[in-house]
């Protein structure tokens, strides 16, 4: 087991001992740190320090504000200033790993959805032999790219705002964000449906599945390399 996995497991065990405000603040802080420009190893190393600090303070009966002050974001920023940041190679490896992972999942779903019906009918011996060739349209391509880009920005947004001050006027902003999110998803789905006849190329089902497996494997390898670079 590598150092990162060992640290992660130990931290998860320690995390179970937290409750109340400590648990909630720790969750938000780890989310914020995960969105920062530091490697997973340093996130876990800082998390271990914070967990031991929080658990000791909990035993002494101190509250979290007494321990780290009221501005959790400023506290995390001062930590981030003093932790080594990712190199350019690490950032590239991380981005590529995320893109390949999204590609693998989306293309995998696309292949299965497009073939599973035909395969089931064929298995029940009630239909013709499926062609096992999957068309990829312009709509599909736009769908893959839009969903991948959106996922990356969405996760970044959640991490960056994990420690943002909750304002009373944010309810209206939340409703607008929710509507915009659904409008975006509807637009992307419409694009996929209306442009489905613009077929760019077709790929054999099993070649597609092999590509999906290769993407997911490469994503995993890059993710590991990202933490070793």
């Amino acid at each position: 087991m590598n150092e990162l996995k060992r640290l992660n497991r130990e931290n998860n065990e320690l995390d179970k001992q937290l409750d109340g405000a400590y648990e909630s603040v720790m969750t938000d802080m780890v989310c914020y740190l995960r969105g920062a420009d530091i490697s997973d190893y340093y996130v876990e190393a800082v998390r271990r320090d914070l967990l031991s600090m929080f658990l000791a303070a909990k035993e002494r009966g101190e509250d979290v504000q007494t321990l780290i002050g009221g501005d959790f974001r400023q506290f995390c920023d001062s930590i981030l200033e003093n932790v080594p940041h990712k190199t350019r190679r690490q950032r590239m490896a991380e981005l590529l790993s995320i893109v390949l992972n999204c590609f693998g999942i989306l293309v995998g779903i696309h292949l299965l959805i497009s073939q599973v019906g035909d395969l089931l009918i064929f298995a029940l011996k009630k239909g013709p032999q499926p062609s096992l060739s999957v068309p990829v349209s312009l709509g599909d391509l736009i769908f893959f790219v839009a969903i991948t880009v959106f996922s990356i920005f969405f996760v970044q947004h959640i991490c960056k705002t994990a420690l943002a001050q909750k304002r009373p006027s944010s309810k209206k902003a939340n409703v607008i964000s929710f509507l915009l999110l659904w409008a975006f998803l509807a637009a992307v789905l419409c694009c996929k449906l209306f442009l489905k006849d613009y077929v760019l190329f077709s790929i054999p089902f099993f070649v597609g599945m092999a590509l999906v497996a290769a993407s997911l494997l490469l994503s995993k390898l890059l993710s590991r390399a990202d933490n070793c670079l």
Partner: protein
Amino acid sequence: MIPSQMLKGTLEGCILKVIGQSETYGYEISQRLKTYGFSDIAEGTIYPLLLRLEKSGLIEAVYRQSTSGPNRKYFHLTKEGQKELLRFSENWSELKTAVDAVLGGLQHE
């Protein structure tokens, strides 16, 4: 209470001195600083400073088992840290003499 702007440059040197006395951990450092008159120093205030000192190679850390609660991160000075502490002591002594002279002079005026 000492203003944070005034604390900024000196707290790191004081932390080095406390760590230089004996191997110690975050909470104990904050408690010792309190006994010296730093009334408002929480463990959370010094944690980023400890990270900075560690990153600069002035202190090293090792996790040791605690008799109560989770493992503790104990810090000790490196050779570079000892040199830095010496530099801090000299600089502080120079600054203190100058500030004392100015304040003393102002009182005489």
